[in-house]
């Protein structure tokens, strides 16, 4: 059974059992038939609920810090917050020693928040108004050390999120390449302990890092002209990065890293589609008299152009290797997209629309029915409202959409008949 269906069935079985539709023995028999561990599904849900509960507890403590308990002496405030930190972490350690792993991880999760809260409180007591990002960096480092010691990916995910917060706060001053260390550690831990959450967080972190570098090098804020160039580059590199994520998910699946494969495919698809839809709606402005954008080869000469080529080429090779020819066509399309966009910039929203429809059709073909349909319907809607007035152009575009979808559906039928 396909692993996504397996997850669905596992969740449904637990639900049916809880609702009394199915008795324990029957549910376990069905689960055993499809090699599903029902106990694991149940434990996972209660673990996630515990994490959410502790997240709210941490928020409650943060709010309490914000209250400025002026009437309370500084020393007492500090003692309270440091005692809470020590108590939470030591309780977690005690739980771990007693074999209650899920409770221990939840408490360490809360402990990492308490650590950040203690830093914020010290900053508040001594009116530290500058370089608060140094405090956030300290938080990230402390959280990482604890998380690495536990070797648990959910805690690494939390620490990476804190490090990402620091990276984004620091962007006002510089692009902190030290963030690469946090990402490298997270990647190493991901290989040790597979996790969907950490995969998604890493995917996002790498993307944010690339974009921030790009924005920094392109002097993002200085002119509208640079802004258009930068946005155009972000779209191009975002698309090739997303496709690379999808390709890597195939590799992960081959090496039996199923959780990583599922998460990577999901986040890559969502990111790619969102970028495509964004590009389709906003990139094409009527004022396209930007000389540099019309230089169709300029993008390939920049570092991000090189990165785009690397992502698209590797995607193409991996997809061809795994015989995913439809997706490989998209990779090929992406490889030459910067050239096409540079040369035909005035038609860029039509190009992105066609690419969106092809993606939607391929998604349907790959059994992502809802996602594929939604993409195609959004394209149709945006194009209808955006191009209204230019009836012939819109009509031709819709005709092309119809042909694309028909070609894909016809091939699907042929393949089905063959099988």
């Amino acid at each position: 059974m396909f692993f996504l269906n397996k997850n669905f069935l596992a969740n449904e079985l637990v639900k049916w059992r809880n609702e009394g539709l199915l008795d324990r023995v029957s549910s376990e028999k069905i689960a055993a038939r499809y090699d599903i561990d029902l106990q694991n599904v149940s434990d996972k849900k209660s673990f996630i609920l515990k994490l959410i509960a502790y997240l709210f507890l941490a928020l409650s403590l943060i709010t309490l810090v914000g209250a400025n308990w002026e009437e309370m002496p500084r020393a007492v405030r500090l003692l309270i917050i440091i005692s809470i930190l020590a108590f939470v972490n030591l309780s977690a350690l005690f739980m771990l020693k007693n074999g209650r792993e899920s409770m221990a991880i939840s408490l360490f999760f809360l402990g990492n928040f308490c650590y950040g809260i203690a830093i914020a409180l010290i900053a508040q007591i001594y009116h530290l108004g500058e370089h608060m990002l140094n405090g956030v960096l300290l938080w990230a480092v402390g959280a990482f050390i604890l998380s690495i010691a536990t070797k648990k990916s959910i805690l690494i995910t939390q620490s990476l999120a804190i490090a990402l917060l620091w990276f984004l706060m620091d962007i006002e001053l510089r692009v902190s390449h030290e963030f690469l260390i946090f990402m490298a550690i997270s990647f190493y831990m991901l290989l040790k302990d597979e996790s969907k959450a950490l995969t998604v967080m890493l995917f996002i972190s790498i993307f944010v890092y690339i974009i921030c570098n790009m924005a920094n090098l392109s002097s993002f804020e200085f002119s509208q002209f640079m802004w258009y160039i930068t946005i155009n580059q972000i779209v191009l590199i975002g698309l090739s990065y997303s496709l690379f994520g999808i390709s890597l998910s195939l590799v992960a699946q081959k090496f039996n890293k199923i959780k990583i494969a599922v998460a990577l495919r999901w986040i890559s698809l969502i990111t790619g589609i969102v970028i495509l839809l964004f590009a389709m709606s906003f990139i094409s402005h009527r004022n396209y008299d930007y000389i540099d954008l019309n230089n169709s080869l300029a993008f390939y000469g920049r570092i991000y152009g090189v990165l785009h080529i690397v992502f698209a080429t590797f995607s193409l090779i991996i997809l061809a290797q795994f015989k995913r020819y439809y997706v490989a066509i998209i990779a090929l399309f992406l490889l030459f997209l910067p050239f096409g966009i540079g040369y035909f910039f005035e038609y860029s929203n039509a190009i992105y629309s066609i690419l969106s429809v092809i993606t939607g059709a391929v998604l349907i073909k790959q059994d992502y029915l809802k996602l594929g349909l939604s993409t195609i319907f959004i394209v149709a809607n945006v194009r209808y409202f955006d191009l209204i007035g230019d009836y012939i152009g819109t009509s031709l575009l819709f005709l092309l959409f119809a042909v694309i979808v028909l070609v894909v559906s016809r091939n699907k039928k042929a393949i089905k008949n063959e099988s």
Partner: protein
Amino acid sequence: MRVKILIFAIIFQILSLIAMLAYAYAPIYFGKEIKVDVTLYDPRDLLRGNYVSLNYDFSALPIKYADLQKPGTKIYLALKDINGTYVKDEYNFVKPKNQIFLTGRIYGNRVKFGIEAFFMPIDKALQIERDIRQKGAWAILSVMDNGSARIKEIVLK
């Protein structure tokens, strides 16, 4: 072994808090007390709660420095005593000698010295904002030899 590493990680967190505490408190304990003019307004920090943002005349950076320097560059502000209140003498990229100075970092056309936020409950913040608008105020700073400073209190004129 794993427990030992975990204990180390927990101790690291607590020790780093104590180090931060020392860093924050050092200027108050070792520094020299000075008085500077200040105005304020009342924002809010999502993590740390309510504070008043302090504005000093000397925080505005002359254009010749602002244009040339990257954000985050260290800069020193020498102060001189005029009738018991310290005011700007001059900005420099080298530490001043035999003079009280503040160490700051350039953010656009302003310099931040780490004395721009004063945390207090919202009612008190709004009250002090009103009072300062009418009377003016001084910030009492404690400044160390290396130019790092902390606010001790805000005093109405």
